[in-house]
């Protein structure tokens, strides 16, 4: 079973979704929770049988799909993708478990299960086309989630989300086809396998163009600064569960793809674009933090803060050294947990009052003490308080980038302080002071179902904030091999200097070949 565990992880939710059509709608929620619980257990099994000392791909699977054109169904997982897969399984489970009463709950759960298939697929695919298939397919359930269960502007928001991402990914697709063609020219065989592409050393000009093509697809997904405009709409209109999944998992596809594709395949281009991207990342951090401060809708605050944190992840990724990249991967998970939790919390209050305007609230701390506590912890995590999960990631990311540029890191550090301002301001507006609005006087505190979703998140936030090693170990292992690969592949002097050489080369292709058999 473990040989095919990745395929099972991908297709089990899809299969369950198809069977789900036959389940009666009153029992659908229980069905969804059970399926996602089984999926989560499988993901945990993957973790326990994962060998943390191996830096390369594990649990590889390979099947020919269109061999005439070099497309194969190749899956594999390493330290970089492992925890995001687990996170995806975890959040689908939590999301379904905490689902409040909605119309068409059956359709929604089926959609979520399909979405889960695509999310897992993106993170374990090792063939560019298979990756692309899941990447694009993930848009469809999300489109439906936002468009069918969203707010008043839902259709505009969902179509904008879809078209924006779709356009970017088509440019990326052309880039992939070019990459395959270059591989074909170099070796005489068509191949879309990412591990094959890793071995291809391209001239710098080619790298720059291809990097740009891939960048479009990834940057829109992240979303990076000039391309971020779809996200506030999507978050603003999406139902709670949609926002949670979007922030926790879907955005990570972009940053994950940077590490999986852009860095190891185009190391020279990555160095060439390091500072422009870092500057965009810092603009992203500062600008969206300021925009977040100006919001009146608490969900928009969380949405913009989410963009802001994605900026830190990008910054860490483009530090191009082990600390930075490890930090950015850790921050992806941390941000997933924290922003997912914040969206859940916003959902809790929205269910009670059907408004997200901060001016409607005030003094909630006395009415809903448990809610205020959890919100407080999550907010502290979001601003990066030490001993919470976000701090580890942010610290490592900035530490990594500090080795590349002191000034820019300093700017980014200041921006994080701005982050503290808007978060604290939002918290103050909502929770402190007198209860001014009569409607808030008798709000019920978080109920059992919501606690089931929120308490694990709080535990994870604190646990990994204090003791991040279980995650950092495997991540670090895999990142080292990526960085070493980049160093070995780099052709320009500057790239060789910027990307550190780790004592001895780690042959990632070697381990993968044995794994494949």
């Amino acid at each position, binding site marked *: 079973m473990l040989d095919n565990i990745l395929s099972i992880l991908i297709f089990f939710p899809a299969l369950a979704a198809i069977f789900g059509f036959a389940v009666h709608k009153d029992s659908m929620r229980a069905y969804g929770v059970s399926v996602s619980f089984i999926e989560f257990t499988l993901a945990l099994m993957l973790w326990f049988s994962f060998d943390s000392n191996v830096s390369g791909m594990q649990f590889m699977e390979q099947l020919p*799909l*269109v061999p005439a054109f070099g497309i194969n169904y190749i899956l594999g997982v390493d330290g970089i993708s492992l925890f995001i897969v687990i996170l995806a399984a975890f959040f689908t489970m939590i999301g379904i478990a905490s689902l409040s009463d909605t119309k068409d709950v059956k359709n929604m759960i089926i959609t979520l299960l399909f979405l889960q298939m695509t999310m897992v697929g993106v993170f374990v695919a090792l063939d560019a086309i298979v990756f692309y*298939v899941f990447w694009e397919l993930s*848009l469809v359930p999300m489109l439906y989630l936002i468009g069918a269960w969203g707010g008043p502007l839902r*259709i505009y928001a969902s179509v904008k989300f879809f*078209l924006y991402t779709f356009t970017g990914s*088509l440019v990326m*697709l*052309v880039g992939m*086809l070019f990459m395959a063609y270059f591989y074909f020219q170099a070796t005489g065989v068509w191949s879309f396998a990412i591990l094959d592409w890793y071995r291809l050393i391209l001239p710098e000009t080619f790298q720059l163009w291809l990097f740009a093509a891939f960048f479009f697809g990834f940057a829109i997904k992240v979303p990076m600064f000039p391309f971020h405009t779809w996200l506030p709409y999507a978050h603003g209109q999406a139902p709670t569960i949609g926002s949670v999944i979007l922030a926790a998992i879907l955005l990570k596809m972009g940053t994950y793809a940077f590490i999986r594709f852009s860095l190891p395949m185009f190391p020279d281009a990555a160095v060439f674009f390091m500072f422009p991207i870092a500057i965009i990342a810092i603009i992203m951090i500062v600008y969206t933090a300021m925009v977040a401060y100006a919001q009146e809708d608490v969900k928009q605050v969380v949405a913009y803060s989410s963009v802001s944190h994605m900026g830190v992840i990008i910054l860490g990724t483009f530090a191009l050294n082990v600390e930075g990249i490890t930090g950015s991967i850790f921050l992806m998970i941390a941000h997933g947990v924290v922003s997912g939790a914040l969206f859940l919390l916003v959902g809790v209050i929205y269910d009670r009052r059907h408004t997200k305007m901060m001016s409607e609230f005030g003094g909630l701390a006395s009415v809903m003490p448990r809610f205020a506590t959890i919100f407080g912890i999550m907010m502290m995590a979001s601003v990066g308080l030490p001993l919470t999960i976000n701090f580890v990631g942010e610290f490592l990311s900035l530490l990594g980038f500090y080795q590349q540029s002191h000034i820019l890191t300093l700017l980014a550090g200041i921006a994080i302080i701005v982050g503290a301002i808007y978060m604290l301001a939002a918290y103050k507006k909502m929770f402190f002071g007198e209860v001014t609005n009569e409607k808030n006087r008798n709000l019920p505190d978080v109920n059992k179902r919501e606690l089931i979703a929120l308490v694990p998140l709080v535990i994870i936030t604190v646990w990994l904030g204090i003791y991040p090693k279980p995650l950092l170990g495997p991540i670090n292992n895999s990142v080292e091999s990526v960085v070493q690969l980049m160093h070995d592949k780099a052709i320009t002097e500057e790239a060789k200097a910027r990307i550190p050489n780790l004592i001895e080369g780690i042959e990632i292709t070697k381990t993968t070949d044995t794994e494949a058999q």
Partner: protein
Amino acid sequence: MLEPVNVSLESLNLMTLAPMLIPIIGALLILVIDIFKSGLDKSLFVMISILFLLIDLGAIVETAGIFTENGTMMGVFDVMLIDGLAILAQLIIVVASLLFIPLALTHKHFHEFAYPEFFALFLFMLGGFQFMVATDNLILIFVGLETASLALYTLIAMHNRDKSFEAAIKYFTMGALSAGFFSFGSMVFYALTGSIEINQIAAVLGANGFADMGFVLVGVVFVLAALGFKLSLVPFHTWAPDVYEGSSASLAGFMSIVPKIAVFIVAMRMFEFLIHSGVVWLEVILYIVVVVTMTMANMWALVQTDVKRMLAYSSITHAGFVMAAILIGTTQSNSALFLYWILFSFINLGAFSMLWISRQKHLPYHQYTDHSFEKFAGMIQTSPVAATIMGVFMLSLAGIPPFALFWGKIYLISSAVTGGYTVLAFIMALNSAVGAYYYLKLVVYMFMKEPVINKDGHVFVANATTPLKTIIGFAAVGTIFAFLAVNPVLEFITALVYKSGY
């Protein structure tokens, strides 16, 4: 006194005629049956047509077998030319027809199917198309094209609505014009080279190094215009939306597939040698036509309020997309053309059939067109299965993986990349993104809006009978599981195209 011509029967190689003659015999048989006993039910004629199409399919497979062993076959005074392109095109034509003809078995009674002549004309038309693809003789191409077109005009008009007559007349006028263009272009080539066989023309022009460039260009422009009318390339597309709207949905789906693949083959035979001859102007002209067709048709499709018209414009876009393959002109791109068209025919026939089963006999008072977007609002609530299937077709047309058209699309874009047309590759990719918007529009209407007009889901399957549902199910399964079939199909196509020397 003229000498008696001595020709041995073997040298005629009459086997090459068999696939074309089978539908013609079928058509004659239908007419004969009608003479002996009139007023027979349409189901009889549908089944007879299917039987003849199956025999036809067998004959084509037979020739395919001979082709893979012996290579290109010539026959009947070297007029017939059976090569890989001819075989592939005939396969597409016959298989698409097999999917089309059972659509006549609707729940409601429509005027045209009451006449056996409908089926006879249909089979005559197929014979015409098959002749057209299996020759490189310009006269026979012309004859085949006209036979098929005249039959098609009549088929459209038989739908017996005001708009159908309008469509038929419009198509007829445009078709007549294009016939004139085609004959004029052929005349120029004949005047230049003294031959009406495309390979002879290529040989003569190549030998004198394209000395009469001006005249070649004149000929090319006329032929391109003629083919452009048939392929509905911009700016010769103006008939297409009106004709699609006027004809029945099933016939519109058929028109978007079969006539076009026949004309694509002619275009491939015609332009292949011209592009590789280094005639720069031709490349520029084709490049412009391709880009303009893709882009403009996309823009027009954005603003349509009727699903059928939207699909008409989308068919124009896809035709422009595939025309790019002819512009690129490598083995990979020519194979991509066939792969794309095979996948496209499944999806497009499926999508048009979905419109067909929701066709009402008379327009309700609040509806101006048969298939306005409003009609489909909230379909997921009233008729979930039909909505899901239609949604799959739309996503597939938009090129969302892993549905069928995606594979054709990447192979085609990849052929642009390998052929050195980098900018074209990006234009194609961006046009796919624009296209996604109008396909999504229908998805949005079906899945995200509340039902406005049709609170009752029955209207969406009003016309459905078991055969129709089977066809749609077949198309849907083909669309979803295409990724399993892509590899063998691609290998088969590439082998045939490569062996034909394209």
